């Protein structure tokens, strides 16, 4: 009897395995959100990440970003870049329909991008497209057309820019808006349109319902041009942050991104797998280079040698993170470790470097040189236990090498005020990065976010070269040299590259079990292919 049972069980298991290969139709995929979307489901007007989840599923763009962070065709069958790198032509799929049955054409694409350039446009994405020919004049109301956007026929559209810009293709992922529904609304009033709360796109899922602070429901698009998704429904379920581990344990949600702080609580739950993956982000301690005491790179290097970042990552972050030494994360194709100094913790070396540079202990044993003194404020945004512990560790480590750090804890928004006003000695924050490694936005000396006040001719030159270079291999070399400069200069001390933990119920099949920076769902791209195996 027992043997028979074993055989039956074995058969059951085998059949389960066999079935698992074959996608199953139907079922609901439940995605946990700890913050509710705002209800601005418009790809050119939203700013919150939670809104983008819905947007990514309801709309399709000309391209999408794959799990290797490369642009791939979506609504466009393909594209062509001109010899001089100044224009890009997209060829659209034919007979693709919006959820209301109207066909997607180049007119809709033109409408979507031209709206972002309009003088009355209320969103924040003009900066990404001002390189288009005529964009600035159009934006300033000096002309009525944008020569840089050219509809060639119903299924062909050409964009032309004024100077070569390598990340150009990756900018065309914005969901295409239906012109026939929005074209008559004055651009300045678009943000008030009812459409934004009941979006219609051409994506794999149709919008069904948004209940404020409760949930968003999407439904499979039966007529999706790449084939109907396997699952019937996607539900974004709002869950209280503190209750998230309970929801995961009770299997009331299928997918949740959790903070590494909660890792212990959710590990070992039967039926739930955890995936740890690198994000495109890093955190740092920024020096104010406008102050003479931080002007010498040796001081910044010595401080970096003097801070035990390994302990920070391994103990305080419990291993969730990777010690960072330059501003391009490991997950990016442009990352390099060649010629990068890792600044391993070495307080003796740090002290020696400072002594060699002429810093001598003064009052209270604090290092001094001329009229400069290594006693400074360290601005720390409140809210993260790990960050606060990091600040304490930094303070201790610095005391060991004769540097006095005064901690100033401050609410985030208030801290940003101080940073923007350049009223800081040092502060800690983090950056989330775009898919393209172009560092112009943060690191070019003209950038408004050049918080450290870093002015370096070669760095600027390389950043500009990197933007112009369209050959990926050459671009990689340019960024490698640039990373070595930043790694030597250390305008900010890099702490760690971020990682995320995703908890996924085992009933979800077809995910990436060795996730890259976009996670097990590949952004949300895989939702149109996954299936639910109960």
């Amino acid at each position, binding site marked *: 009897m027992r043997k028979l049972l074993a055989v039956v069980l074995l058969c059951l298991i085998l059949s389960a395995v066999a079935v698992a290969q074959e996608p199953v139709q139907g079922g*609901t995929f*439940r995605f946990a959100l700890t*913050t*509710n979307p*705002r*209800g*601005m489901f418009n790809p050119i*007007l*939203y*700013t*919150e990440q939670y*809104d983008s989840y819905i947007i990514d599923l309801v709309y399709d763009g000309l391209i999408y970003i794959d799990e290797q962070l490369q642009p791939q065709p979506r609504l466009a069958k393909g594209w062509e870049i001109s010899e001089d790198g100044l224009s890009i032509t997209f060829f659209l799929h034919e007979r693709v329909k919006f959820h209301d049955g109207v066909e997607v054409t180049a007119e809709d694409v033109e409408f979507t991008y031209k709206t972002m350039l309009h003088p009355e446009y*209320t969103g*924040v*994405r*003009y*900066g*990404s497209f*001002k390189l288009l020919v005529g964009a600035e004049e159009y934006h300033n109301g000096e002309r009525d057309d944008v020569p840089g956007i050219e509809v060639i026929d119903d299924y062909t559209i050409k964009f032309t820019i004024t100077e070569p810009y390598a990340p150009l293709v990756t900018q065309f992922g914005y969901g295409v808006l239906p012109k026939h529904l929005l074209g008559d609304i004055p651009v300045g009033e678009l*943000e*008030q349109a009812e459409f*934004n709360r009941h979006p219609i796109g051409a994506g794999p899922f149709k919008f069904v*319902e948004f*209940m*404020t*602070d*409760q*949930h968003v*429901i999407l439904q499979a698009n039966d007529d999706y041009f790449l084939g109907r998704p396997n699952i019937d429904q996607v*539900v974004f*379920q*709002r*869950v*209280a942050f*503190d*209750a998230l581990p*309970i*929801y995961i*344990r*009770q299997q*009331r949600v299928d997918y949740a991104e959790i903070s590494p702080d909660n890792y212990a609580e959710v590990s070992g739950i039967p039926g739930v797998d955890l995936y740890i993956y690198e994000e495109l982000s890093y955190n740092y301690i920024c020096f104010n280079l406008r102050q003479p005491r931080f002007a010498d790179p040796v001081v910044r290097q010595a401080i970096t040698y003097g801070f035990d970042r390994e302990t920070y990552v391994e103990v305080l972050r419990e291993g969730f993170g990777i010690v960072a030494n330059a501003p391009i994360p490991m997950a990016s194709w442009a990352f390099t470790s060649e010629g990068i100094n890792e600044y391993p913790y070495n307080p003796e070396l740090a002290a020696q470097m400072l002594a060699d540079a002429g810093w001598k202990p003064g009052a209270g044993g604090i290092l001094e040189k001329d009229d400069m003194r290594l006693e400074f404020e360290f601005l720390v945004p409140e809210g993260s236990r790990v960050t606060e512990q990091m600040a304490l560790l930094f303070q201790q480590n610095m005391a060991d090498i004769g540097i006095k750090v005064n901690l100033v804890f401050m*609410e*985030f*928004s*208030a801290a*940003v*005020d*101080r940073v923007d006003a350049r009223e800081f000695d040092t502060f800690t924050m983090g950056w*989330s990065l*775009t898919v393209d490694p172009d560092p112009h*936005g943060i690191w070019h000396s003209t950038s*408004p*976010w050049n918080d450290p006040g870093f002015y370096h001719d070669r760095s600027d030159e390389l950043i500009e070269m990197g933007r112009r270079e369209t050959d990926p291999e050459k671009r990689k070399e340019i960024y490698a040299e640039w990373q070595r400069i930043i790694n030597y200069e250390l305008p900010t001390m890099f702490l760690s590259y971020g990682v995320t933990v995703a908890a996924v119920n085992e009933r979800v099949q077809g995910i990436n079990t060795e996730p890259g920076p976009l996670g097990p769902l590949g952004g949300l791209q895989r939702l149109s292919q996954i299936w639910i195996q109960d």
Partner: protein
Amino acid sequence: MWRYIVRRVFVQGIPVLLGFTFLLYLVITIAPGSPVTHLRGVPNIDEETIARREAQLGLNDSFPVQYAKWLGRVLKGDLGLSFDSSRRPVADLIMERMPATILLSLCSIILAWVIGIPVGILSARYQYSALDYAVTFFAFVGISIPSFFFGLLLLYVFALKLDVLPAGGFFMAGEARTFLGYVKYLLLPSITLGLSDIAGIARYMRSSLLEVLGHDFLRTARAKGLGENIVVYKHALRNALLPILTLMGFTIPFIFSGAVIVENIFAWPGLGSLAIQAVSERNYPVIMGINLMFAVLIFIGNLIADISYAVADPRIRYE
């Protein structure tokens, strides 16, 4: 009575509300941090876009101008547009969430009264008994325990360990809205929110009743040969309830401010998370709208308490 109400509203209420909104607007605008701070995270954003946004939100005006514009709109019945990316009317944002907050607050108030008053009476009736000591002990625990901690404790026990109640939220997508469902989702948050009031009301009821029980007229009642039950429940109770009615007026603001925290723990779809988000993002119109509304509700609550005071005590007349 009507003259009293009119005077309360126009002579006291409106000037107080005006002063309150003025001070609040002043405080939130001089507080550090800016409503456009979060735009830092948008890739490729330029300073010009941020400057345009600031102009669009009216942030370039001085404080008196900003406040005057806000007040002008409010007098016309318009609470303005939210500063966040959705740019929705503040009134809509509030109205969508108001029913949930009122439902939760009402439940916790009812819970506090239905439990607090009888417990207080019993505790006074059997003063210095084991029951009285137990009530006193739990009342102190109830008043002292922070609601976020108590809420987490309830979640841990009832949602995780016993798995009999949901871990917060308000109906899963697609779940039928039955009466039992409401009870299920309301139970933990309303107990958390009502706890300190249950304890407070029980303590007040106890001391109020004990005080009345010592009065001469009750000694007379007992001397006439009335049973102790009639003395307590008929003669003493009505007098003892009077101070409790004022307490009701006072607890309303605490219930609302408590709701902000409790709603966040339980992902309750009320005003709580909107309020907290608005503060951290410096969303001035939403902060102003929510606070104005709370101020009005509190004012009405106090007014009702005063009026019911007159109804309960024939000696009190407002002229």
